[in-house]
């Protein structure tokens, strides 16, 4: 049965991977808040981040930090291309939510297939950013990469907080999320905000992809799971709240790590998807809002859907 070390170990591992899910989840929220669009191709940015970095690293032989620094803007540019070629024309024509979701899903498959044709279908991985490790504390084994994930993740969250709170663009994005019409009347270029949102969320996905690749692998098809996990993280957090998505991601990561220890690695996805269905059906406003509602003695889940 489980002992304390195993539980601690899964907590640590779950935190690391959960932070990644949280970053992807924030990516969902950034686009959703700016436009009300849900981008099902979010996971593709995670995949592209890892793949671009690996390609730059092996083809040009540059240091990993430099490769990552080049890959992130490239992926952000890919996000802008998706926005400009696919999402914007539909948005301007007043396409339905389902049509846009379907188009982004098709985009994801299209980018995956193009990746197979150009970069190949073999899985690949990156070296850990800091060689050596894992760090051993008692029975725990903590890989150095987890410190990188936690450090970069915390840094990124801090930067996002500053961006949304202190900069003009960040505030304009928040204005869009509260009321697009009013924001447009006040002179916020709503169309450009959508583009910025896609660039930002693609960059977030790329960072997540680069950070997580050393701990597992990357291939053309890792996008779907990361996209779905990020979506679940966003849903747990109440869809739209960046902090909620981050917390939701960490919760999901830990839950998944515990499921791997108790049920086996094969059930990692089943556990996550079941968590999605449970949260959707029981707490449609997000786990935290739902629990708050329960604590306050009134379940709003019935009518607020």
């Amino acid at each position, binding site marked *: 049965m489980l002992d304390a070390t195993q539980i601690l170990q899964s907590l640590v591992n779950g935190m690391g991977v959960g932070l990644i899910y949280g970053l992807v989840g924030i990516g969902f929220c950034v686009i959703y808040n700016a436009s009300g669009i*849900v981008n*099902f191709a979010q996971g593709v940015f995670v995949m592209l981040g890892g793949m671009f970095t690996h390609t730059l690293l092996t083809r040009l032989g540059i240091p990993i930090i430099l490769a990552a620094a080049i890959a992130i803007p490239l992926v952000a540019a890919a996000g802008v291309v998706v926005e400009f070629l*696919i999402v914007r*024309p*539909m948005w301007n*024509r007043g*396409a*339905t*939510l*389902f*049509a846009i*979701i*379907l*188009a982004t*899903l*098709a*985009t994801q*498959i*299209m980018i995956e*297939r*193009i990746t*197979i*044709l150009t970069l190949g279908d073999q899985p690949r991985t990156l070296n850990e950013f800091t060689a050596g490790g894992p760090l051993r504390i008692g029975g725990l084994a903590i890989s150095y990469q987890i410190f990188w994930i936690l450090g970069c993740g915390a840094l990124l969250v801090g930067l996002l907080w500053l961006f949304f709170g202190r900069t003009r663009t960040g505030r304009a994005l928040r204005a869009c999320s509260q009321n697009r019409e009013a924001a447009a009347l006040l002179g916020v270029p709503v169309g450009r905000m959508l583009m910025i949102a896609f660039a930002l969320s693609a960059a977030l996905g790329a960072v997540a992809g680069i950070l997580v690749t050393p701990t597992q692998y990357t291939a053309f098809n890792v996008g*779907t799971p990361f996209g*779905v996990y990020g*979506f679940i993280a966003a*849903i747990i957090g109440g*869809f739209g709240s960046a902090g909620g998505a981050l917390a939701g991601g960490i919760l999901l990561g830990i839950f998944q790590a515990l499921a791997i220890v108790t049920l086996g690695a*094969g*059930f990692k*996805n*089943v556990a996550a*998807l*079941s968590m*999605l*269905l449970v949260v*959707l*059906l029981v707490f*449609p406003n997000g786990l935290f809002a739902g629990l708050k509602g329960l604590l306050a003695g009134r379940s709003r889940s019935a009518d607020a*859907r």
Partner: protein
Amino acid sequence: MISPAITSTRPRAAWTAALPVIAAGALIAYGLTSSGYIATVLGFAAIYGVFCTGLNFFMGYTGQASFGQNAFAALGGYGSAILTDRLGLEPVLAILASMSIAGIVALVVGYPTLRLRGHYLAMATFALGLITYEITIEWTSLTHGYMGYSGIPPLGLFGYELANEKQQLVALVVIALFGVWISNRLRNSRFGRALRAIAGSEAAAAALGINVARYKLAAFVIAALYASVAGSLFAHFIGFISPEVFGTAMVVLSFTMLYLGGIGTTWGPLVGALIASLIPEVLRSTLPGGLKEGQDIVYCAILILILIFVPKGLSSLGSLWQARRSAVREG
């Protein structure tokens, strides 16, 4: 207006009813006279036609969205494979048994899921497809995992097997036509009109006394039954299935077909399936790289272009033209 009829009572003009049958007959004749390969391509089209006709119930008539119908196709396909291989069941019985399993699963899963709306519904149904995909990979003792299931017997009844692709093609086209016939009869029935009322406005439909949740669920179950049959037919027609067959690409492909043929129309799904199946054959010589990948890219590109420029499907182009013409005539 009281309409007690369960199915449509509206008489149809004789020639329009005969037209699709003639077209289907011509297709069968073409399939029978050309190579076995063409027969296989047309067989695929018929199978996808069944799948899309079911999806059309839920998406076209009822105006809902399911991104996870591949789950039920997988249930049908694996149900057929396992029942015929392990239990030695007749293919037809295996299809019916898989159908009932898929129907029950759709009922149980759909009841809570269909209360969701918007992107929640989209992701919940998408998750259904993903869960099924994971299970078919992980439950190797039952499904053979990544390797797939081979040696599935062809369609047949009471020991008599349809030996080659051409005989099977005839059976598949007949089944597809039967599926479209059901869809056609239900479309203008009380049931079909209720579904279309829901597509128009849920609140208005509810105000008219339509039990929205129950009708949505019924449409979802019908779609699942069609998907299950399509999955079973695929298994018997090809003799091999793998998790990849029922993966996410299937979702996009079926949507491409639905939008190509015209979403919400009776014949659209079948026509769209036929056009989409013939596209790779036409482009075969010009496609870049691996055929499978190039094919998927083309499908995705077509779907995205349709979604941007003609969101009601290509068949709406005709009605646009008609509307303009009648406007000219009246004005």
